[in-house]
């Protein structure tokens, strides 16, 4: 039963952590760390495992986002964090695309060096209050005016948890525009295989040597599993009990929180 959690961790060389809902709960004032997570990250870092962070966070630039987590007490560096905005910027440059942006105001600096005139594609992120009818219509107009409408979505999450409750994520608005324009968006971020692969490349390990820990069953756990990685779901953040009986995705393991996951991982590696 070497492939079962938690025995499988004996082969693991690297751990990838989702951030929101695993490390902290977001909300007013930036959010609060989940109990035990600050310490859990520290323990992983001092182990022999490689550690990366993989987020679909698009409400702030990567720099500001990491600074926020550092203020919460997390030992984390910008270079260890993978987020969709830098990834989409490199795709845009590679393919000579000029985006119309429907994103959070605080994310805009990530696109500073990108030509946004006469747009020939639309990029959406978790725009929160910027998801107004007017802004959705503007994005819709750009798309239907194009011969080949092209929509990039930074993630495809359904919802996430803030301290005052669950909030709609970018995937909902991606679906709305897909339906309106009869197209299929290109997802940059989790669960896109390319996104996970870039994290694995950075660690220099094979998929079966990596373990993903997240609170989003479909995008974190399911996405990682489709790449050949192991996926654990934490019962924090957006976790709902019904996730454990999901019709299509079954995690390799379910743990109460990141601290419990790290306990089990380190325990089994000592054996």
């Amino acid at each position, binding site marked *: 039963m070497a492939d079962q959690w938690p025995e499988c961790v004996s082969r693991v060389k690297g751990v990838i952590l989702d951030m929101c809902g695993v490390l902290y709960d977001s909300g007013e004032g930036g959010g609060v760390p989940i109990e035990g997570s600050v310490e859990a990250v520290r323990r992983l870092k001092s182990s022999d495992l490689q550690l990366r962070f993989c987020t679909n966070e698009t409400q702030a630039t990567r720099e500001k986002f990491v600074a926020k987590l550092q203020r919460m007490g997390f030992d984390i560096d910008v270079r260890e964090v993978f987020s969709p905005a830098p990834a989409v910027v490199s795709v845009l440059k590679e393919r000579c695309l000029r985006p119309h942006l429907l994103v959070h105001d605080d994310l805009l600096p990530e696109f500073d060096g990108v030509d946004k005139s006469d747009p020939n594609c639309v990029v959406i992120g978790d725009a*929160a*209050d*910027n*998801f*107004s*009818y007017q802004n*959705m*219509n503007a994005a*819709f*107009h750009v798309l*239907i005016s194009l011969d080949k409408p092209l929509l990039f979505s930074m993630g495809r999450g*359904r*919802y996430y948890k803030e301290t005052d*409750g*669950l*909030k*709609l*994520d970018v*995937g*909902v*608005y991606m*679906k*709305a*525009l*897909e*339906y*309106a324009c*009869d197209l299929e968006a290109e997802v940059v971020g989790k669960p896109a295989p390319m996104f996970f692969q870039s994290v694995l490349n950075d660690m220099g390990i094979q998929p079966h040597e990596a373990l993903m820990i997240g609170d989003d069953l479909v995008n974190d756990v399911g996405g990682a599993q489709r790449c050949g990685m192991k996926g654990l779901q934490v019962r924090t953040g957006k976790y709902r009990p019904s996730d454990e009986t999901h019709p299509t995705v079954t995690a390799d393991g379910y743990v109460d929180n990141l601290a419990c996951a790290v306990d089990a991982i380190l325990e089994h590696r000592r054996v």
Partner: protein
Amino acid sequence: MLLGFIVGVLNNGDGCSYTRRFLIVFVFFPSVFSRCCSPPVQLVAVTQQALVRQKQVNTKSQEEEEPNKPVVLRKDPSKFLLRRAKVAVKFVTNTTKECKRTLLERLRCLSFDIEEREIFTSLTAARNLLELKDVRPLLLVEDSAREDFAGIETTDPNAVVIGLAPDHFNYEMLNKAFRLILDGAPLIAIHKARYYKRKDGLALGPGPFVTGLEYSTDTQATVVGKPEKTFFLEALRDLNCSPEEAVMIGDDARDDVGGAQNTGMLGILVKTGKYRAGDEGKINPPPHLTCESFPEAVNHILQHLLDTK
């Protein structure tokens, strides 16, 4: 004008002992009455302008409405063969913005004498469903449509109704709807149109937002407007008429004709309004009949579909 005469003939006819061999269901938005030319049946000559304007009002804005010129309004009602043929008539529409009263008022301003009970809209269908399920809705509809939900309890909602409501399609309101649905509230969509035409160009309809909420909660909305079966069945209910005894005339191959035929009615497609060449080939089975115009459709019904015994 057509509506006025039809009702007038009904009321002035030989009482209410009609044998309802056929229920004729018309769409008036989008209009089946536009571009009527030299109609074989007089009654239709009038309807053109009025109903074309209806369409404008519905899809664009109130200000665009021109003053009405009901030129043929006072023609001899006896010519209105459809009413004399003793069939029940109902007018069905997928409006999400306009309550029945406004609809009627406008028609009456145009000298139509039409009964409220002859109109069946997607808002009525939504209301019926709410009453059936005995739920309290969060109403994402424009203020102009709220009247059709008068008397329905809306405090502490445990259901969500979505129509075309740009004012409500903001992040905060959609989050509210999302949380209710996640807690088990049924999602009721008046219809799922992708977009509609406004003065300043195309604008997103309710469909994209319904689709987004469906995705967010992994649920399926109940759509109450055309082309849903339940819509047509509800429209027929108070007439004690089975779908097999009814004919639908419309300009939308999929939503009007296809929807009606899937319910068991006969569907007649008219080549006016939003009709585009080749539309009749887009549904399977094809329309029972495709006509140049509404009057031709009426003629066909009178000559071939009514039981004249």
